[in-house]
C-alpha cells in the first residue's frame, strides 16, 4: 500500500513537473519588471531604458508581461518598490546605480527571482549586473569637443560623483586632450539626475565661464536647449536630442538596451538565465551615436567616424597608458589598459591634467 501511494506521488510529481515544464515554455509569459529613476519622458536615461523595454516587448510578444515603475527615488523607497515587484515577477531590472544595495538586499530574500542591476558591480547567484561602456561614447565626443572648442574650455554638467560619471569625465578629457593639448574641462555637479531648471542654470554658468562645448551626464534636454539658444555646441545624452538643439547637437551618445533586455528575458523564459556580468560598448552595439551634424568640418567628422570604427573593432581602448592620476601618481603604464574590476567599475579619481577638484 505504501508502495502504491509512493508511486502515485511519484506519478503526480512527474505529471506536475511535466505540466510545469510545458507551461513554462508555452503558456506562462515571463513577468519582467523595470524600476526607473526618472520619468520616461526625460528623453535621456530613463527614456532610453524605456525604448529598450519597448523593443523587448515587441520582440518577445506574448512571452513577456512588463511592469514599469517610474520616478523611484534612490532611498528607502526603492527597496520597498523592488520588494513589491520581486513578489510578483520572475525578473526585476533596476536601472540606476543607487539601487545597488537595495537590489542585493531584496535579492537575498527572494532567491528564486532573477535581478538585473544596471551600472553596479555587486553580483549574486540571482543578481546580474549590466552596464554600457559609455566612456567609449565619451571618447568619441571628447575628440569632437577637443577639435570644435575655440575657447579651449569644455563644460561638463555632472550628476553625482559615482564611477560611471567619473569614467565619462576622464575619458572625454583624455580624448579631447589627445587632439588639443591646451584643452581644459570645467565640471559642475548638480547633484541630481533630473532637474531641468538646475541643469539649465549649470549650462548657463559654464557658458558664462567660457565653455563653448557642453557635455552632460544628467538626464534632461535642458542643457541642449540652452546650448542652442546661446549658440554653443553640445552632445545628446542617452538619446538623440537633435530636436532640442538642431544646431547645437554635434552628435549624441545613444544607449541601446533593447537587445540585451530581449535576450535576458528570453533566457528566463528558456530557463537558461545565469548570473552574469555584462559590460558592453560600441562593439556590441549597446553604445550608439546620433547622426553627426553637418555643421562640423569634414575632418572632425571623419576623425570621429574613425574612432567609432576603431572602437567597434576593439582596436582602441579610451584608457590606454601611460596615464597618471590627478595627483601625479601612476595609474596605467605605457600601452596598458585597465581591467573592468576594480579600475573601471570603481573609478574614484580624476586623471592627470584635469584642473577641477575631485568632489568629496
Amino acid at each position, binding site marked *: 500500500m505504501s508502495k502504491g501511494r509512493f508511486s502515485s506521488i511519484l506519478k503526480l510529481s512527474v505529471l506536475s513537473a511535466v505540466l510545469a515544464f510545458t507551461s513554462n515554455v508555452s503558456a506562462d509569459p515571463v513577468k519582467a519588471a523595470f524600476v526607473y529613476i526618472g520619468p520616461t519622458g*526625460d528623453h535621456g536615461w530613463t527614456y532610453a531604458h524605456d525604448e529598450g523595454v519597448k523593443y523587448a516587448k515587441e520582440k518577445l510578444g506574448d512571452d513577456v508581461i512588463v511592469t514599469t515603475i517610474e520616478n523611484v527615488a534612490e532611498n528607502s523607497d526603492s527597496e520597498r518598490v523592488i520588494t513589491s515587484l520581486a513578489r510578483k515577477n520572475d525578473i526585476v531590472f533596476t536601472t540606476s546605480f543607487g539601487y545597488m544595495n537595495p537590489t542585493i538586499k531584496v535579492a537575498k530574500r527572494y532567491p528564486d527571482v532573477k535581478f538585473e542591476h544596471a551600472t553596479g558591480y555587486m553580483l549574486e547567484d540571482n543578481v546580474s549586473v549590466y552596464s554600457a561602456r559609455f566612456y567609449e561614447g565619451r571618447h568619441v565626443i571628447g575628440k569632437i569637443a577637443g577639435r570644435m572648442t575655440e575657447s579651449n574650455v569644455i563644460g561638463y554638467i555632472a550628476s553625482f560623483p559615482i564611477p560611471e560619471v567619473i569614467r565619462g569625465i576622464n575619458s572625454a578629457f583624455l580624448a579631447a586632450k589627445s587632439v588639443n593639448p591646451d584643452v581644459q574641462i570645467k565640471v559642475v555637479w548638480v547633484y541630481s539626475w533630473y532637474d531641468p531648471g538646475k541643469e539649465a542654470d549649470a549650462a548657463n554658468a559654464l557658458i558664462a565661464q567660457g565653455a563653448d562645448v557642453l557635455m552632460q551626464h544628467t538626464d534632461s534636454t535642458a542643457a541642449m536647449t540652452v546650448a542652442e539658444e546661446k549658440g554653443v555646441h553640445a552632445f545628446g545624452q542617452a538619446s538623440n536630442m537633435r530636436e532640442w538643439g538642431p544646431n547645437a547637437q554635434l552628435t549624441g551618445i545613444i544607449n541601446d538596451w533593447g537587445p540585451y533586455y530581449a535576450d535576458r528575458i528570453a533566457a528566463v523564459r528558456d530557463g537558461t538565465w545565469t548570473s552574469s556580468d555584462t559590460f558592453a560598448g560600441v562593439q556590441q552595439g549597446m553604445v550608439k551615436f546620433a547622426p553627426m551634424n553637418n555643421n562640423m568640418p569634414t575632418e572632425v567628422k571623419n576623425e570621429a567616424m574613425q574612432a567609432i570604427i576603431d572602437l567597434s573593432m576593439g582596436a582602441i581602448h579610451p584608457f590606454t597608458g601611460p596615464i597618471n592620476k590627478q595627483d601625479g601618481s601612476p595609474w596605467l603604464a605605457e600601452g596598458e589598459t585597465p581591467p573592468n574590476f576594480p579600475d573601471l567599475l570603481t573609478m574614484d579619481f580624476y586623471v592627470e591634467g584635469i584642473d577641477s577638484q575631485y568632489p568629496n
Partner: protein
Amino acid sequence: MMIVGALLGFIVQFHTGNPFLAVFAALLGGMAISSIFAFLTQFLLTNQVATGLALTLFGLGFSAFAGRGYTEETIVLIKAIHIPVLSDIPFIGPLVFSMNPLVYLAFLMVYLVWWFLFKTKQGLILRSIGDNHDAAHAIGHNVVRYRFMAILFGGAMAGVGGAFLSLVQVPIWGEDMTAGRGWIALGLVVFASWQPFRIILGAILFGGITVLQLHAQGFDIRISAQYLSMLPYLATIIILVSLRIRLKNKTNRTVPNCLGRIFHSTS
C-alpha cells in the same frame, strides 16, 4: 500649483505662440488648483497642511499625466527685454535693465501686494482676519470670502512662478520639472517674516546661492556645494530664532495669529 502652471503655460505657448496667453493660462492653472484647496479648507474645514500636501501630490501626478504628449516638444522662450539706452550702461545696464518681463512682473507684484496689504481697506481687513478671524467675523467681515480670494491669488502667482521654468528657463516640459522648488516659497515667507519687501531680499538670496554654487564650482572654489545649498535654510532658522527673541521683548505682529487655523463661523 507651480507644476500645473508650468504645464499649462507650456501647452498654450506651444499651440498659440502667444506669451501673454501662455502666462495667463499658467495663472489660471495655478488658480484652478488653489481653488480646490480653498474649497476643501474653507468650506469643508479640512486640515490645511494635509490638504496642501495632498494637492501637491495631485498636481504632480495630474500634470505628469496631462503633459504626457508634450515631452517631445519644444517652444519659443520668452525673451529678456533690453530697455534701450539704459541697458547699455556698463554693469548696471545688463543687471537691472535687461531682464525677463516675468522678473519685472515679480518685482511689480511685490509692490502691489505691499500696497494692497498695507495701504487699502481690504488689505487691512485681510490682515485682521489673519490675526483674529473670530473678531473679524464678529464685526461683520466675510472671513471665508476673503480667505478664498487670497488663496486664489496665491495660486495664480504660484502658477506664473511655474511658468517661469517652462517659458523662460528651459523651453521644454518635463514631469516633476519644478523639483520641489515650490517648498522654498514657504521658507521665503518665514524668512521675510510676512513683510512683502523682505521677500525680494530672501528670493535673491535663495536663488542667488543656488546659482552661485554652480558658478563657484566652475571657478573651482573649494566650498562644498552641499554647504552652500544649506545657507538659505540656515539663514531662515536664524531669522526664526531672532524673531522669537524679539517677540519676547515686545508685542510684535510678525506672524499672523490665526496661521493654519480653521475658521468655522458657528464656533
